[in-house]
Each structure stands twice: as C-alpha cells, then as structure tokens.
C-alpha cells in the first residue's frame, strides 16, 4: 500500500525541508494557491471557516455549558453522564467532541488537560487551541510537573490537592468543569458564563471569583 508508506513520506518531508520557503506566510499562501487552482477548495470557504471559529465557535460556548451546569443540576447530571448529548442540547456538538468527557474540580481535586503526542482539543466547544497548549513546554511538563505548570499560570495548589492530568491519547476529549466561585449566588447563567475563562476549562486556571484576576 504505497499511500501508507512512512519512508516515502519521510523522504517527502526532507524535500520540503530543502525547498519550501522559510516564511510561514509564504508557505501557507503557496498551499492555498495550489489548492484553489486545482479546484480542491474555494478561498471563500476558507474565509467562512475562519469567521465561524472567530465569531461563533470558541470558549464562550464552553463557558455557557459550565454556567448551565452550575445553575441546572439536571443538566449537570446529563453532562457528566453523556457530555456529547448534553452539549448538543445547546447545539454545540461538533468537531472533536463526539467523545467528550467532563471532569469536575472539587475542593481537593484539580483537573488538567493535555495532549502530549500531538495537540488534541475539543474544538467545537473551546475553538482553536492556544499556542502554549500546542507547544513543547506545556506538552512535555504537564504530565511530569503539573504543580510547576499550574504555578506558572498563577495557580498555586498545596500538596493536599490531588491533581488529575488527562493526556488525550485517543479520540476522547476532556473539558474541565471548574468550581462555581464563592459570592456568585445571585448571578444568572449569562453573568456566570462571563466568569468562566478558557484556561479554567483546560485546567490552567482555577479561582473564578470576580477578584481572582487581580490576585494573579
């Protein structure tokens, strides 16, 4: 099966290493130009996908899921039991979330999500992953030194905390359900969603109380 020949692809990469321009913008421009000329894609469709992931599909979706889980115990129950079905109640099922699992922070458990082998991420509820999530520094250390990684993000946990690191090695994707902050009792779902940070749903943020930002 020549189409699955690793050695052939390794040789192709060697050629690309020698022949592609160094500038990333020029590389991607060359790729798009060839794909358009070969009628494999229309640039307007690329525009549409960029707009979709800039305006609609992003961490505000995940924040809404979290806020609903905080305010609706039945929804939270469904979310913990069958996350893909629960997020689809909001229309948020999509790319890379058909096997979503939600893991919940408690007073003594903190969850952290990583993909050490590539960069797996629940796109349809968190959007495009941050660059640090895809970079070697985070991917290498999250499994080995989670306390140190969290401290770098300003999250200092003592040894009484159990840290659970989820390495996304299969097609399951993980969403951290952060704790509802103290003092948010009077807030409605929309206001609560405004407190939920992207990083808190990856696990690199923890305290979502209104004054937490100034402490960091």
């Amino acid at each position, binding site marked *: 099966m020549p*189409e*699955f020949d*690793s050695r052939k692809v390794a040789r*192709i*990469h*060697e*050629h690309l290493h020698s*022949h592609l321009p160094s500038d*990333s913008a020029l*590389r*991607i421009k060359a*790729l798009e130009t*060839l*794909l358009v*000329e*070969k*009628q*494999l894609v229309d640039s307007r*469709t*690329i525009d*549409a*996908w960029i707009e*979709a*992931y*800039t*305006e609609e*599909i*992003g961490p505000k979706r995940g924040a809404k899921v979290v806020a609903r889980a905080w305010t609706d115990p039945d929804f939270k129950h469904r979310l913990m039991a069958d996350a*893909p079905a629960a997020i689809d109640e909001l229309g948020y099922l*999509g*790319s890379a979330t*058909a*096997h979503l699992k939600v893991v919940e922070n408690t007073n003594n458990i903190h969850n952290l999500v990583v993909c050490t*082998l*590539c960069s797996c991420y629940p796109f*349809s509820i968190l959007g*495009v992953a941050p*660059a*640090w999530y895809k*970079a*070697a*520094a985070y*991917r*290498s*250390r999250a*499994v*080995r030194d*989670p*306390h140190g*990684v969290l401290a770098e993000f300003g999250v200092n946990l003592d040894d009484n905390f*159990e*840290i*659970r*690191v989820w*390495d*996304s*090695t*299969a097609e399951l994707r993980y969403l951290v359900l952060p704790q509802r902050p103290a003092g948010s009792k009077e807030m409605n779902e929309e206001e609560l969603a405004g407190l939920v940070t*992207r990083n808190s749903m990856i696990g*690199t943020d923890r305290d979502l109380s209104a004054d937490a930002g100034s402490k960091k």
Partner: protein
Amino acid sequence: MDGIHDIGGKQGYGPIAVDEPEVPFHHDWEAREWGISRTARVPGINIDWWRHCRELIMPEDYLSRPYFDSWAQTDFATYINAGLISLEEIISGEVTSDQFKNDVSPPVLTCDQAIQKDHDSARRFDTEVESDPLFTIGQKVVTSSHGHSHHTRLPQYARGRCGTVHDYHGAHVFPDLSSQGEKTWQHLYSIVFEGTELWAEDGGRNSRVYLDLWESYLEAE
C-alpha cells in the same frame, strides 16, 4: 514511532508562554491554515495517517517551525503522497498541465453553513464488537515495554508501567493499524497511573495521570 513528537515528560523546553493574547489566531496565515484544515485536506484521508505524517516531519523542523506551519507541511506531504500535488508544483507555485486538477468547482460555504458543517462533523470512532473486554474497572494492568516504528498512541513515558483501569470506553478504531490503512477496532480503557509510578522525582506529590489506551497496549499485572 519513537519520534520527536512523543514529548511527554521530556525536559528542557523552558517556560510556558502564559501571557499569550487570547485570540484564535495570531497571524493571518494561521487563520488561512486553520480554514484549509477544516475543508481541504486530502479527500478521504484518515486522522491517524495524517497524524503519523506530521510525526514524520524532520525533528529540527518539528521543533522549530510554528505550529500551523507544521500542519501546512503535513498537508503538502499528504497531497504529494496522494499524487494530487507535485513537488515541482510546490517549488514553482504553478499548476502544471499534466498534473491532477479537479473537474468540478469546489463548494462555496457561508459562515452559517460552516457552523452547521462543524456540527455535522461530530464523528464517533467506536463500534459494537463481539469480543468482551479483557479488563474490568479497578483491575491492575501493566503497559507494553516497547513501542514500534509505526504510529502508536502509547507514549514512551507510560511504557512498562503499572496502572489501574479507571473506565471503559467501548471498542474504538485502533490507530496503530488505521494509520497503515487497516481499519480495526479494539477495546479502549482509561488507565490511571500514580505520579510516583511514572516519575522518580514526584515523591509525595499528589498527582495522577490518566491515559486512554487500547487493549493490546495492556496486560494483566
């Protein structure tokens, strides 16, 4: 494959860029590559083979090129491998007449249609199989000591280690064979490892690492 991508537990990669601005794209070309990845990968390519083709990027490029740049390089490589783009076309930037060209115009999506398509792209990788899972929740297992030279999802840091079955996910497409063009399914488990089992310096630090691992990576302890 014991490649440069298998980076979990490696040391020396420096601090994390925690102050990165929270925007989906930092450069226009990142956005273009993201759009290409949503709609214009090699028709019919499977994710395991695509991931393996990214792992095959030369280590110096894998570590030094920006992330979305490595996606573009993987797209180039898979298109060349599939015979749809030639290296000569990439070098010249022009389509040569004797090379592949699609006969029909590609679809033009609106933003709303892209959002709908994203919703419709939710794809499951599990199936019903006749065999029963070998392991039960709570059972102690040990992972394989060795990898192999193809694509695999058992990271080096978790090889030959003792863990406990935390959960069972059903039978999922087995990436080690899917990446070689053979679609099979295997029971998939969430295995939890104590930090002290994985890392010598972890000591009393209270951490656990959960990995989703296929049955053939595991043996009963």
